[in-house]
């Protein structure tokens, strides 16, 4: 799916890194004025890590998530994902890499209202052209794993917010992604729902998945292994929590 010629040949030690950025900068022009969203950001995220990006609105955390998710491109600097230099990929190459390797979890769940829970989970597998049988097995496995098999035929409007987010997480997991990107995953949930979802994310991380989560809540950020704090497009602190 991904064009090997874009694989960076001299990244050496970065090959084990899931995400590696060097001097990543994002700027845009509006009304003749240049605005800087991110400036010279250097981040390394290892495979299996759970990293939270903490910061207030406008700090640049969502822009980072968008670039990690290949839906936005940096203005300068380098971005290497899973050993591939994706800084200058074309749109189609980004789509191909994204659809099989990156799972998204959204603040507002991102479910398609016309599809039931099963079909929402099935959709990314359809884009990956899996056979019906494989799709069936994979979706059912995820539904079982998240204990939401009973919700399989429910439509989003029939679910609670926490259930919707579980379906959203399931959809991110179903493609067995290399990276899971979660943008304010508990932003639309109450505290009970929020902590339940955080537990789920921790459990997913424990099974080996790499998770990058953007949040403005310090409490939630603490639940990750590492917190990178952003402000005005700069990394200001980086805390590593040693797991027991």
């Amino acid at each position, binding site marked *: 799916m991904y064009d090997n010629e874009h694989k960076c040949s001299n990244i050496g030690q970065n090959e084990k890194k899931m995400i590696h950025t060097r001097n990543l900068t994002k700027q845009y022009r509006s009304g003749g004025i240049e605005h800087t969203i991110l400036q010279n950001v250097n981040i390394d995220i290892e495979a299996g890590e759970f990293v939270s990006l903490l910061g207030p609105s406008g700090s640049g955390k969502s822009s980072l998530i968008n670039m990690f998710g290949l839906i936005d491109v940096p203005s300068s600097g380098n971005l290497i994902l899973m050993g591939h230099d994706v800084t200058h990929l074309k749109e189609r190459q980004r*789509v191909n890499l994204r*659809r099989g390797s990156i799972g*998204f979890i959204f603040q507002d769940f991102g479910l*398609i209202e016309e599809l039931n829970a099963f079909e929402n989970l099935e959709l990314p597998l*359809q*884009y990956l052209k899996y056979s019906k049988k494989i799709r069936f097995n994979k979706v059912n496995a995820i539904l079982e794993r998240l204990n939401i098999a009973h919700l399989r035929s429910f439509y989003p409007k029939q679910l609670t917010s926490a259930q919707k987010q579980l379906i959203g997480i399931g959809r991110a997991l179903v493609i067995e992604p290399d990276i899971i990107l979660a943008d304010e995953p508990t932003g639309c949930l109450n505290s009970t729902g929020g902590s339940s979802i955080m537990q789920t994310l921790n459990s997913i991380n424990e099974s080996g998945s790499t998770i990058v989560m953007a949040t403005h809540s310090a409490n939630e950020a603490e639940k990750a292994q590492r917190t990178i704090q952003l402000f005005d497009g700069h990394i200001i602190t980086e805390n590593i929590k040693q797991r027991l």
Partner: protein
Amino acid sequence: MMLKHHIKVALRNIKKQGIYSLLNVTGLSIGVTLSLLVLLLVKQELNYDTTFSNSSSIYRYTTKGILSANLINNATSPMPLGEFVKDFKEVNSVVRFIPGANNVVAYDDIKFNEDKFRFVDPNFFEIFDLEMVSGESDSALLEANTLVLSESTANKYFGNADPMGKKLVRSNIEYTITGVCKDMPSATHFKFSFLASIATIDKILLQKGDSTYVKNWKTDWLYLNCYTYVKLNPKVNPKIFEQVVNEDKNRLLLPQIEKTLNSEMSVDSVNLDFFLQPIEDIHLHSQLSGELEVNSKSIYINLFVFIAIFILLTTCVNFINLTTAKARRRFKEVGLRQMIGASRRNLAFQFLTEAVVYSFGATFFGLVLLELLLPFFNFFFDLQLEFSLITGWIDFFWILLLVLSVGIIAGGFPAFFFAGLKPKQILQGEYKMKDTGLVVRGILVCSQVAVSVFLLIVVSGMWWQIQFIGNHDPGFNSDNIMVIERGSAVSKNFDSFKAELLRHEGIESVSACSSLPGDDYFQGTFKLKNGSNEKVMVLPLINVDEDYFTMLDLTLKTGRFLSHQAGDSLGVILNTRAIEEFKIKKPLGQKIEVFGSKDWALNISGVVKDFHYEPYNTKIKPLALILLSGKMRFEYVLVKLNPDYNIETINAINDSWSNHTESSPFVWEMLDKRIEKLYDEDIRIAKIISVFAILALFMTIMGIIALAAFLIEYKSRNIGIIKILGASRQTIILQVFSDFSIYIIVGVILAMIPSYIVLTAWIENYAYSSFINIMLFPLAALIVAGLAFASVFYQTYRMASDGPIEQWQFT
């Protein structure tokens, strides 16, 4: 794999979006139904005369040329032509037929006046291969006095009884029924009720005691008395064959011309050629003298096709507008799909599938609507359109193509619109319509305005012309004149019939004539010798009773009307046009010889002002009116009724008719209604075009309103801002108007030239036409622009009246 998913999502979306889906499907359904109706009409028009085997190899011979100064351009040809061409190896079959005059056909007491009685060659079915219900097609018409009936005629006379071997009587001649065939299909340029063997004509003529005439009738090359059809070998080039025949026929034709001309005039002044006209072209491309039925015109087909395409495109544009106007509702879904792996192709395919699903639904409802509407449509417009999906797989194929085309056209723009969205912009709410999108919508407004103005001008112009015909002075007075068909039934005792009618106080005058407007005219060739100059001319002839002139209120230019009292049995009245053609300065007392017969010369007694003895689509030609006398035949009795006539008057005429005829049916109609019928085809077509054009116009206006709504909604943020800054309602309306006016003005200007061209082409079909009323153009422009501006005004006014926060929040 994804197709099933896309269809499922499309169906759920349609269900979810309720009224919006209903609007979209209804709009598409109406568009599809209207287009299919028009296309069925076009299909029937284009398929005229295509049902016979090898119909593309069947031709009708037409005659074109000059006889002295007269242009001949006839659908008929001389009898000997058929005999002449049948020996050519290029010809597979030749069939001639002669239409019989209106006459009563009787089976015992069952009598009907019949106008579709044809005398045909025995091999008629070799070319027009209709299925025989009974009898043998190759032998049924070999003998004289044999008759083949169409199936519907057989049912009319005999019901369920077997007609074979039974005898019918027409004009005192008995015919034995030797066959029954299927009716001619409705889409053919001629129909028949009876086919009599051509050999019968000899008997009829011999009965009249003129054996020389029998011979001349069959051999005279200058007498265009029959319709000749040939089936050529499919490999033959008709143009080359036509040339061969025309060169070769002079061998036979020229000696006859020389003989007929009696060596008194140049042979060069006669030049008749015979042309092969594909029968498939007759209905749309033939407007010759002596056509068997009123033919249509190809310009109608072009207009119909234009309207059908326009309706479909308008439908699609309206669909695009509705879909993209509601696009914001789908942005999130599009963004999400892109994030979880959908490519542009996936998205384009999804939205195309959705449009095709809409199109399928719309076509299904459109077909149901078509089935329901077709009988009414046929009834109101006197059509015989047929539609069957089950029997016509070709129709099915075309409909499938229509579904896909509508789906792709209607869904194409939304598909690429959605596929082109960027996920980041959507998810962060940054999407804004590009200026190019606004320009595209502006162009759509402009084109919808242009087509609306075009349709309005063309339809108004057509009706203007039809009204002109309705109000045009024909040069005679047709008020309160009753026409009794088959007047020859009282020819023997016409004087007594006339006298009896005139005794009734409800009747002002009684007359008779051989033909009326819309009929074929008997033509005579006349020669005027004026000193050393000589002029030969073919003149239509009408035999008239002496009261004909005053009854029709014809205007005498000079001389006097004909009368028996003045001894005018050899008198003639010419119209002004004839006098101009003969170039006679002092016509009264001049003699015109019946061509080829020095013994029969007519004395010009008077000249009448030109009157429309033919429909308005032909220029008034020279005309000779001669007095009915002796054995002269007439077809119609004319009765001028008192304006206060009542049913008793009609009953009295009926009684008198019965007393003076041998139970001949009393068939009558009023002359003014009869003349109106001549324009029925034009009126019918104009009505059909108008109905579709008005519906198309309605759809276009709806489209303009929708587009205006969309553009105004888009501008709502700016409107909110300028309102906050203190702009008055007036200023806002003026600003929006100034943005819109360019599209509307350009649309109006674009419509002018095409509508002028089409209208001119339409009016050229009439020899007498109204000038194109120039006021139609600004009027149509004002109406459409007025509607468009009214829509813009209403929506802007509403928006300008809201608080600024509403517009601000909208964005």
